[in-house]
């Protein structure tokens, strides 16, 4: 058996069971906890785990997506098979299911970059409260949820993760005191969050009304371009407008991306400031039935003008050509609703009725052509231009789940954990090569373990060369870990100067 170094694995509920249960209702989450308490009574190996109170709000804390799924649709299964062909030559690894706890444990033990994760959250090599007072929350294999875990060092985090083997874990804020001590503090005011990375969450489900290629949990290259556009716009604004430099984008494992901003100034923002920043970036408001979703004043704010500039080309290619959102007459009606001139709309409708199946690209071009032809006496060129700009924004501007960004206390899934439904690793996205990032090509945990076995099986031991090869270097996870390492090194370099300043500051406070 490959990667069998782990022997004392905790036995969880069976993976089959997990798929048959609807994971979205809070009540069931509570049931899991109950089941778990029973287990504790029976005195199994997890009985020492400190089970945190479950608060209803915590159950909604997850910024990620799987909670929204009703079930794993057959289409999703297909997509998965399509995108992860059983290419590995070794027979054992592809057979193993990624929800197998042993697979998970082997991943933590051999591949998870704990060292860089520690440095990233600690902002220094030397252990500090930035890490020690940081909340982690574990989701165990039986779906029990443990909040307020904390660890003095990255090694101790690793040790506990190997002991509990969570199916995933989340990262929360740095608190005024060690989260494990929160109940012993005399006053509740003594325990409160003081810092956290500013985070963003973008998920394709928020694009369902405008994406035609897939729906729900499914994604393809066409709709991933929505995420690409969103990253470009948000990343640019964060850098140019807010002056942030340490921004890491992370694939959420299925159909979205998270951003983590580690600049000291971002980490120190209180909720009011986070809300302000989220409001600045938020544009698309209202649900499917709310009519016009973009209502912006003119002149356009420089941030919106610049975003429009970034998005224009994507609109032509990724929206008009790939999504073709107004091909059918009913859908074209939606486009007409967003245009300001009735006579022009009548002329367009007439034209499109006589040419069924006319593409969105042509229809978009028709708007200006028909307007110029004088078919409408009332058309106002400026209003039409503005309406068209609004349409471009409605179909391309990032749709953020801003609630995640507004609260310091919000927990967000850690980079490099495994997405429980796809088995893919939540890898960082190198924004310098953003267009090249392919979510369907992101390695799954089983592939990675297969790659280790394959590498080791080849017997390529460079003995005598001194430095032994790390496991991640044997796999396709290598570029992602290296990107992370370089990114973290940059953060630590900048932080050094700041830390010195901060120590001076602290001396002034009491």
């Amino acid at each position, binding site marked *: 058996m490959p990667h069998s170094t782990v022997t004392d694995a905790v036995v969880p509920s069976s993976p089959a069971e997990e798929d048959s249960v609807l994971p979205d209702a809070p009540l069931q989450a509570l049931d899991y906890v109950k089941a778990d308490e029973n287990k504790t009574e029976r005195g199994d190996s997890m009985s020492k785990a400190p089970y945190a109170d479950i608060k209803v709000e915590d159950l909604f804390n997850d910024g990620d997506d799987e909670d929204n799924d009703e079930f794993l649709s057959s289409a999703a299964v297909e997509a998965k098979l399509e995108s992860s062909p059983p290419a590995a030559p070794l027979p054992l690894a592809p057979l193993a299911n990624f929800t197998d706890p042993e697979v998970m444990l082997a991943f933590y033990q051999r591949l998870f970059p704990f060292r860089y994760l520690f440095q990233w959250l600690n902002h220094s090599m030397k252990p500090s409260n930035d890490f020690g007072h940081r909340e982690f929350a574990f989701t165990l294999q039986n779906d029990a949820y443990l909040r307020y875990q904390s660890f003095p060092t990255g090694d101790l985090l690793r040790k506990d993760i190997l002991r509990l083997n969570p199916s995933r874990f989340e990262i929360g804020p740095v608190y005024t005191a060690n989260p494990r001590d929160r109940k012993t503090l005399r006053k*509740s005011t003594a325990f409160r969050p003081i810092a956290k990375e500013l985070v963003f969450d973008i998920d394709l489900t928020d694009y369902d009304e405008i994406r035609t290629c897939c729906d729900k949990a499914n994604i393809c290259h066409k709709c991933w371009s929505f995420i690409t556009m969103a990253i470009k716009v948000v990343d640019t604004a964060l850098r140019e407008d807010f002056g942030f430099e340490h921004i890491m984008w992370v694939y959420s494992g299925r159909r979205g991306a998270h951003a983590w901003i580690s600049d000291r100034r971002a980490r120190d923002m209180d909720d009011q400031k986070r*809300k302000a*920043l*989220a409001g600045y970036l938020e544009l698309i408001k209202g649900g499917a039935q709310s009519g016009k979703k973009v209502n912006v004043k003119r002149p356009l*704010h*420089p*941030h919106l*003008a610049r975003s429009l500039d970034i998005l224009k080309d994507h609109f032509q290619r990724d929206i008009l050509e790939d999504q073709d959102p107004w091909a059918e007459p009913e859908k074209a009606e939606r486009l007409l609703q967003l245009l300001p001139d009735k006579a022009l709309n009548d002329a367009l409708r007439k034209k499109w009725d006589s040419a069924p199946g006319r593409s969105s690209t042509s229809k978009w071009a028709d708007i200006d052509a028909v307007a110029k032809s004088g078919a409408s006496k009332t058309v106002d060129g400026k209003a039409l231009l503005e309406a068209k700009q609004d349409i471009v924004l409605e179909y391309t501007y990032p749709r953020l789940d801003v609630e995640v960004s507004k609260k310091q206390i919000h927990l967000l899934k850690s980079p490099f954990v495994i997405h429980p439904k796809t088995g893919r690793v939540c890898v960082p996205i190198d924004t310098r090569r953003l267009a090249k990032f392919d979510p369907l090509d992101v390695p799954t945990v089983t592939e990675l373990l297969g790659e280790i076995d394959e590498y080791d099986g080849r017997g390529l031991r460079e003995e005598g060369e001194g430095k032994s090869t790390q496991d991640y270097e044997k796999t396709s996870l290598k570029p992602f870990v290296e990107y992370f390492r370089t990114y973290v090194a940059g953060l630590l370099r900048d932080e050094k100067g700041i830390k010195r300043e901060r120590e001076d500051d602290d001396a002034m406070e009491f």
Partner: protein
Amino acid sequence: MIRQDYNRIDPKRRSRLDHKKKQFAIPTYKQQDYPHRLNLYETPPTAEITLEQFEQWAIDRLRILAELEACSFRNKTPPETAAHITPLLQKWLPLHSNSSSSAGAQDEALKLERQKDHYSHFILRLAFSSTEDLRRRFARIEAALFKLRFQFDDARERQAFVESLQLDWEVVAEEEKRTLAADLVNATPGLRKQEVEDGGWFKVDFETVPELVETRRVFLKRGKAYVPVREQMSMVLAGFNERLDKGLQLAARALPRLDEDDRLTPILNHLSKNFATPDSTLSDSDSAIPGAPINAASIDALSQHFPLCMRNLHMNLRKNSHLKHFGRLQYTLFLKGIGLTLEDCLIFWRQAFKLITDDTFNKEYRYNVRHAYGDVGGDATRRGRGYSPFSCQKILTEHPPGSGESHGCPYRHFSGDNLTTLLQTTGINDRDVLKGVKEDVEKKRYHIACNRVFDFTHAAEIKKAKDEGSWSAGDNETLVHPNTYFKKSFMLANGAKLGRTDEMEM
């Protein structure tokens, strides 16, 4: 005396206690002068005041804060709020500009006003620092008060105040302004190109102006917000909020030290408790109405003017010909408050308790009524007036009703359905009002629910009073006492005939 106590909350003093913190300036205790009307409350008070001032100033400020909060609960617009609060500020917490006196800031009366404003802020800061919820509410309302005053300040004095703050604002150089002109115009709504060129611009950290950032009304570049002079208020307000938040945290940490002081702690506790429902001590002029036909026979008719708690007691009394102890006490004191004489009150109860004999009444009930009126029992000083009628706060917080008891506050002690039924029995069927009450109650804003009902049931009369000009500033105050509820209701219906007393000293 108090000065010593007060120093306990002066965070700077702690630096003297801790040898590690020597770098702090030793505070100098001196009478502060107040060159500006407005205050960011950065320096804690250091001069002596009397215990009476301590309490009275705090209570006066609390009235204003409670009214301001009620305005926001009742969704009043900023102009409505200003119209509501301005006369109350004149009454309880006036703050005149330098130009109002020939002596300017040297005027002793102005100094005293400013001292009261300064001290009362710090007393309440301490009283409301104990829990996160109180701190948040306090900070929110204080910010609203500051904003209100800032807006209505004399323009020149406001400018002088702002300049005195020495906030971290960098002036945008002419050349940069020219380079960024297009962005500045586009990012700042309602600004003409000419203004961009002529007006002053500041560069501040974007965190300083969260309101402008959130609504995308400011140009941002690499973490700096480019703010035109006219947006100063937003920045000053942010500065105010930031300082207050920090100050409250410090006060919370200083609070345990006060436990030793047995004189201040009860006052502070009382103040913070009062914040939920402002208490009022009632004077006769607040409740009794000279010349009104109030006697044992008129209570049925008058009960249309009673607040829901008393109405409920009255209806239960009529239904069951009986009320249990706390119900009798609450109701008797209320009746005493509206001006029912002891004799009439005894007649009222005797007639109401139809199912018992005179003998039983005399033995078991008569004494209690007399006691409530101060006719018997207690010590001599107390006996003068007996007990005071219960305020909303007392009814809300003490002796919740048990089974078979009808006292308490229906907004608080009734289930949602029963409350709706009760309101409907009193003739309130308006869906919006019932919904509003439900929301108030869910948010534990019981007195707001009661005031909502009052406003609804008296809408026509209030409008008439306003049209006739017989509506005074004091009439705007949120009702926090059943007897003021009665008086206001009764006066609205009969006021013109009765020759109202405008001096409502509370």
